[in-house]
């Protein structure tokens, strides 16, 4: 008997009587102003910073980053992502500017899929990350977020809620563990 058959059979012999799936809470009523405030607050607590839309271009120019990649229209990178076939070639990226598809007010998480990042490793390997999010794409809770996105639409997608961090040494917060050392958000 294959291991699969064995395991499934053992489950059938052992499992409890059927239990119904509960209903999930409905979407909260829209509160754009409140959501934006909560979104900014929670991201700031995670050490993310914000840049205003009118300052975006200047920010990227003045960032001091030598190697920049961008998939946001109107922001030019120094490296053409489509010309790269091995993700290892992204090891030198200083700043990645990517659109986020959706933002969640309650925890600051922003959805970035393979479609926006082109290379899956990009939002992680870059030294600094800038995400651009449209105000209209803010939702209240994670429940709503999962109703709005199709997680299987691309091969990979991630919610990002701050710069990479660790507290593994005596619970001291250190920003920049393996991924980006900073996260800047442009809400427009």
């Amino acid at each position, binding site marked *: 008997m294959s291991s699969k058959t064995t395991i499934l059979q053992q489950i059938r012999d052992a499992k*409890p009587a059927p239990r119904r799936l509960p209903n999930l809470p409905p979407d909260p009523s829209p509160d754009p102003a409140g959501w934006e405030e909560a979104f900014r607050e929670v991201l700031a607590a995670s050490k993310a910073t914000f840049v205003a839309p009118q300052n975006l271009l200047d920010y990227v120019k003045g960032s001091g980053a030598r190697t920049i990649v961008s998939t946001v229209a109107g922001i030019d990178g120094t490296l053409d992502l489509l010309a790269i076939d091995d993700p290892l070639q992204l090891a030198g990226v200083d700043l990645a500017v990517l659109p986020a598809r959706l933002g969640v007010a309650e925890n600051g998480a922003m959805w970035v899929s393979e479609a926006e990042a082109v290379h*899956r490793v990009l939002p992680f390997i870059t030294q600094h990350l800038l995400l651009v999010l449209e105000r209209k794409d803010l939702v209240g809770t994670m429940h709503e977020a999962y109703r709005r996105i199709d*997680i299987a639409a691309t091969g990979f997608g991630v919610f990002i809620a701050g*710069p990479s*961090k660790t507290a593994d040494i*005596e619970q001291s917060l*250190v920003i920049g563990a393996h991924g980006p050392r900073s996260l800047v958000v442009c809400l427009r």
Partner: protein
Amino acid sequence: MTHARRAAKFLLDEARTDWHDASLWHVRSKRDGSISGIPEWESLRQLGSDIKDNVLSNLDAYLEEFEERATANGVIVHWATDAEEHNRIVHGILQHHGVDRIVKSKSMLTEECGLNDYLETQGVEVVDTDLGERIIQLRSEPPSHIVMPAIHLKKEEIGALFHEKLGTEPGASDPQYLTEAARQHLREKFLAARAAITGVNFAIAETGGIVVCTNEGNADMGVHLAPVQIHCMGIEKIIPRAEHLGVFTRLLARSATGQPVTIYTSHHHRPKPGGEMHVVIVDNGRTTQLGREDFRNSLKCIRCGACMNTCPIYRRSGGHSYDYTIPGPIGSILSPGIDLKKHGDLAFASTLCGSCSDVCPVKIDIHEQLYKWRQIVSAEGHLGAAKRLPLLGAGTVLRHDTLYNFVGQAARTALRLAPRAAVYHRFNAWGESRELPEIPRESFKQWYARTQNPPA
């Protein structure tokens, strides 16, 4: 050796015990702060618990659905009945690709299966990439906590370790500096690895994908750079639909560290272009636990660690005192089911205060299960004499009213007159660190009869 003996060793360093206790309590307090922002927290826990109940009652169908969807997505799914088969499968994949060095992010399942040791004896270099895991790997130690593997170590010890292993400045112990050193060291490993292994937080039956939650971004650095990605999961990690992730992502990080969500919640559904994606589904005793009506709830665990952070015993005895992959209250209800003789005493590593059950995001009745394991341990004759004999005596006394009255009276007199040595001796472990309260002259019964009788 028993948990009590190992805990006694931990307790020898009182200052360190206090520090450990305070560190964990700090995390527990952050959890409290974070959930206070969610007015519907209790109903969210109920949802988490109800979804998991449904999962357990329909586990076979969900796993089959998962395999079907994942396979259609181009993912290769494997099944392992036990740790050994799991290890062989993983090694087989690596061998097939001629891989001799891999990076691995946190996975309690691979700890449980002893994957690192197995692969190393097969000549494969395994590098744990979560900072805490890398620290304990360099020290050749097991993790002492499921979320914060190096919570038992002081920064000076980590500084000395990094000086020896990674060449950092002698005496340097600044967390920022040490983390930067680890970042540089591990970046090289990420760039060189040809295969990456991760654990799985959630697997979605409806979509055939898996979700991995981290703060550091180490799992993603590994998985997206290496051509071969392998995700190892216990059968209980399955959830029915994508929308259920809304419930569990809201519960997990808040319970674990007090964060509103982990920095990265990564959803993997298909291999990267030109790459390979494997999922290994492991039983290793879980179906046996599923068949134990009193204990199957333990399979609902989402490994947040909250029960450890809140446990007065865990906080003051350290994760290593449990001598099991998963320490703390949840480990103490999982491990007796694996080996009752070896781990049965863990059922007693608790005050039964119930704090673990109170904080558990999926409402596992942890303390009640601890109590039930105690009865099994005792019935199967695994109770030490120091616990068994007094309980036997107490049982007899409590069953007989006159005897109870007499023994009470005798004890009150005897304890007043007896020399200290009669109570505090080496056969009475209880007396080692406790003082008896002052002995009252009359029993509660006598006091009640005297004060409550209406005056004539």
